[in-house]
């Protein structure tokens, strides 16, 4: 803690300048680009390449959201691109509709298709999503080719219109560049928003995201839908730009091209997407002779995918930023003078947690059987038992990771028995994991900010960025890691990672804190620190339910103990009495 004393603590963080002002250079550069696109004299060939790069980049931005930020795969981006293209193509020709209506309609169609696909698949593992998106891509291609009455089949659609405002190719290109700049700005800024943080959390660790109040499924569906809309938007612009579309431009092979663009540049950032798109449009132009042998050019794409994944998993831009991060010293976080205040909500009666008749059966195995637990407000309650007695299963049922087979769970007077994890967290539950579950690609501060962002956290005001950062810094300072807030999780020791996980739970200002074996794997001095930390938490009136094997810690910290063995409760009551209970002694030491 000595390093904190050297820096003059500030009472509160300074308010940052408005976002638009800080990002003004971006908009000035974007405006300059639009102006260049509108005013420079390009020949037709260059114009086509620029048009393709611009519209493709928008679709690739979509992949950077769904794959880069949220970690979900989408192998049908060309199909969504096709939705937008065909909406504009058919709409402006066969149906004589206004261009803007068609573009909007195309985006909506892509959105709906993306949402339906996501809703049906995203509850399942990633393999399903990969295969379902491939299937969807194949179906869309089949329809484009065979439903001639609708799509004109393999001949494609020609004489596609443009908006009356941008009839010349040059002005239309400028319009596309402007759209690209706006979309790029939003995608670039997304990781720092609540939604973006939720996506990154889901990508890093779904279970931890859920118990930190993030609706994992909705976040994934949202990411998928955003990706689909950007695909549709890019496709709609593409159709207007080239005035002719045909099914082969939206095939599975094109989806792979989009994927390769995204991986090559760096899937995590829109800058990477732009680099990847630019390169993979230019390189084939330079290597045109490859196209004379059918297949060769895509074979090289396939090989590049394997090589990029193996040797440059973060892409070109990821490679550059990682190198930059190594030479740039991480700024120490500002020391903060605000102490962490825990103000657990208290709407119910004397009991914070009332568990009655809780059971969890796995097939014939009764992992937890008819367990009652009552946790008094403001106390430390320990749940102990030999290995395999059902402690962690109980905790997982309490936090909603497992569905209870029978029984009832009341949290601060609210029945949470059937709620999913994120709603229990919103209702005031906080927890840590036995095997630490932090968001490993983020800094300590970012991890704790996600905790502070818990829906229903009354300690962060309206939840603006400054309030969240203040709360998170206060929590990290509380566990003694304030000055290291800006370091990546991977640079912390095991013991410190545990403390960060506790800080993440504390920042959320929970009503009840569940600690799953917090002392496991700690050395003796770290255990003493943990004990001292538990005392400071309890002193602020936060109720704790702790599982641990360390009997010294448990007997000193807890006033009340519940003992499980073979999934059943064998003792319950005041600490010292429970630890002397003959059944407990025999469960731990065996009987003669």
């Amino acid at each position, binding site marked *: 803690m000595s390093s904190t004393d050297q820096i003059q603590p500030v009472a509160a963080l300074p308010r940052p300048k408005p976002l638009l002002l800080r990002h003004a250079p971006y908009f000035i550069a974007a405006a300059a680009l639009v102006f260049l696109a509108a005013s420079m004299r390009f020949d037709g060939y260059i114009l086509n390449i620029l048009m393709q790069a611009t519209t493709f980049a928008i679709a690739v931005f979509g992949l950077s959201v769904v794959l880069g930020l949220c970690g979900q795969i989408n192998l049908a981006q060309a199909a969504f691109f096709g939705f937008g293209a065909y909406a504009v193509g058919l709409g402006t020709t066969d149906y004589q509709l206004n261009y803007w209506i068609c573009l909007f309609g195309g985006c909506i169609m892509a959105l709906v298709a993306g949402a339906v696909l996501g809703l049906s698949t995203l509850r399942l593992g990633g*393999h399903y999503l990969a295969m379902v998106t*491939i299937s969807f891509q194949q179906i869309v291609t*089949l329809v484009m080719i*065979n439903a001639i009455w609708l799509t004109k089949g393999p001949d494609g659609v020609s004489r596609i219109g443009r908006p009356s405002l941008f009839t010349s190719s040059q002005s239309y290109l400028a319009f596309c560049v402007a759209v690209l700049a706006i979309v790029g700005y939003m995608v670039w800024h997304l990781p720092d928003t609540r939604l973006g943080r939720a996506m990154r959390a889901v990508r890093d660790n779904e279970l931890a995201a859920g118990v930190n109040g993030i609706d994992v499924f909705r976040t994934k569906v949202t990411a998928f839908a955003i990706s689909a809309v950007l695909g549709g938007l890019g496709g709609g612009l593409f159709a207007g730009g080239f005035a002719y579309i045909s099914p082969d431009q939206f095939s599975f092979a094109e989806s792979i091209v989009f994927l390769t663009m995204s991986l090559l540049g760096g899937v995590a950032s829109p800058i990477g997407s732009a680099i990847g798109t630019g390169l993979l449009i230019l390189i084939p132009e330079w290597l045109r002779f490859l196209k004379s042998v059918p297949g060769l050019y895509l074979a090289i*794409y396939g090989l590049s995918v394997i090589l990029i994944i*193996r040797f440059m*998993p973060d892409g070109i831009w990821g490679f550059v930023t990682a190198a930059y991060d190594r030479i740039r010293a991480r700024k120490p976080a500002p020391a903060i003078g605000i102490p962490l205040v825990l103000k657990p909500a208290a709407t119910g009666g004397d009991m914070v947690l009332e568990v009655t008749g809780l059971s969890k059966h796995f097939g014939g195995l009764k992992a937890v059987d008819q367990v009652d637990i009552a946790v008094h407000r403001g106390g430390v309650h320990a749940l102990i038992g030999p290995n395999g007695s059902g402690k962690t299963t109980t905790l997982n049922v309490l936090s909603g990771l*497992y569905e209870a087979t029978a029984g009832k769970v009341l949290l601060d007077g609210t029945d949470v028995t059937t709620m999913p994890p994120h709603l229990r967290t919103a209702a005031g539950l906080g927890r840590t994991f036995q095997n630490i579950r932090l968001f490993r690609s983020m800094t300590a501060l970012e991890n704790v900010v996600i905790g502070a962002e818990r829906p229903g956290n009354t300690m962060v005001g309206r939840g603006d960025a400054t309030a969240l950062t203040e709360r998170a810094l206060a929590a990290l300072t509380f566990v003694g890691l304030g000055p290291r807030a800006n370091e990546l999780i991977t640079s912390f020791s095991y013991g410190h990672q545990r403390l960060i996980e506790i800080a993440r739970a504390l920042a959320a200002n929970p009503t009840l804190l569940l600690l799953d074996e917090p002392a496991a794997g700690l050395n003796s001095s770290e255990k003493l620190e943990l004990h001292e930390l538990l005392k400071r938490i309890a002193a602020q009136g936060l109720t704790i339910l702790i599982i641990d094997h360390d009997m010294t810690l448990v007997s000193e910290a807890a006033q009340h103990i519940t003992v499980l063995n073979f999934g059943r409760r064998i003792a319950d009551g005041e600490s010292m009495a429970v630890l002397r209970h003959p059944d407990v002694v025999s469960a731990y030491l065996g009987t003669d």
Partner: protein
Amino acid sequence: MDLVLQLLFTGIGIGAVYALVALGFVLIFRATNVVNFAQGEFSMVAAYIMVVCAVDLALPYWLSFIIALAGMAVVGLVFNLGVYYPLRHRTYLPVIIATIGASILMANGVLALYGPQPQVLPGWFETPGIQLGPVYLDSQYLLIIAVTVVLVIFNYWFFEHTMLGKKLQATSQDKEMASLLGISVSTMIMITFIYSAVLGGLAGLLVAPLLFVSIQMGSTIALKAFAATIIGGFGDVAGAIIGGLALGIIETFGAAYISVPYKDGFAFLVLVLFLVFRPQGIFGERVAEKA
């Protein structure tokens, strides 16, 4: 009624091919927890080797068959070393992206080497088939069904009654424990890839005389086989076989009674119905991640 029986026979024959490829999927999935998206390309590559040997070089059919299967063993080995092994410690996402890359590479590599013209591969037998009452039994379909039955029995015997099979099972269930018991996990995984590639190749050789040998045949078969594994229950061996047969039958009847151009769409439809209403499939059970 005659038509129904005839379609049933055809459906089972096609379904048996899906079942073989699905079996390859499942074996790799169980050993590595990774879905191999290039599984269908194994069938396609084998069919092309067969075309080169039996048609272009006019080698005897049986010899070409053996060369093609041996070639697939090599492909499986190279695939394991080049695609899976370097990424074995990463999460599933990079690995499936790499297998997708491999699938694109194989399909288009063959296209670049052999050209886009679909090829015709004759069947194994001179006799086209036999008439059994109202049903015409095509000899190639009979062969497919017979080989599948034999392979399913072999598979059962191999995994349940041989030491190597038990080692493979141990590896798929718990890699750490298996390696502590002295089983070389990377060798077991290599064997799995080789075996799966040969299975996929065999399916390709059997189905090739019924279709044109083309670059697209791999992705079509893989899609069906994957749907079959989901219908049967992901990761379940019996499920893959039942799922494959079910899909073959559904598809054949769908093409006969509903629509031919959209024949390949039925697999997707069935897949989505299962994902929405019974994602664990007929046999399988999803295991929740342990906190």
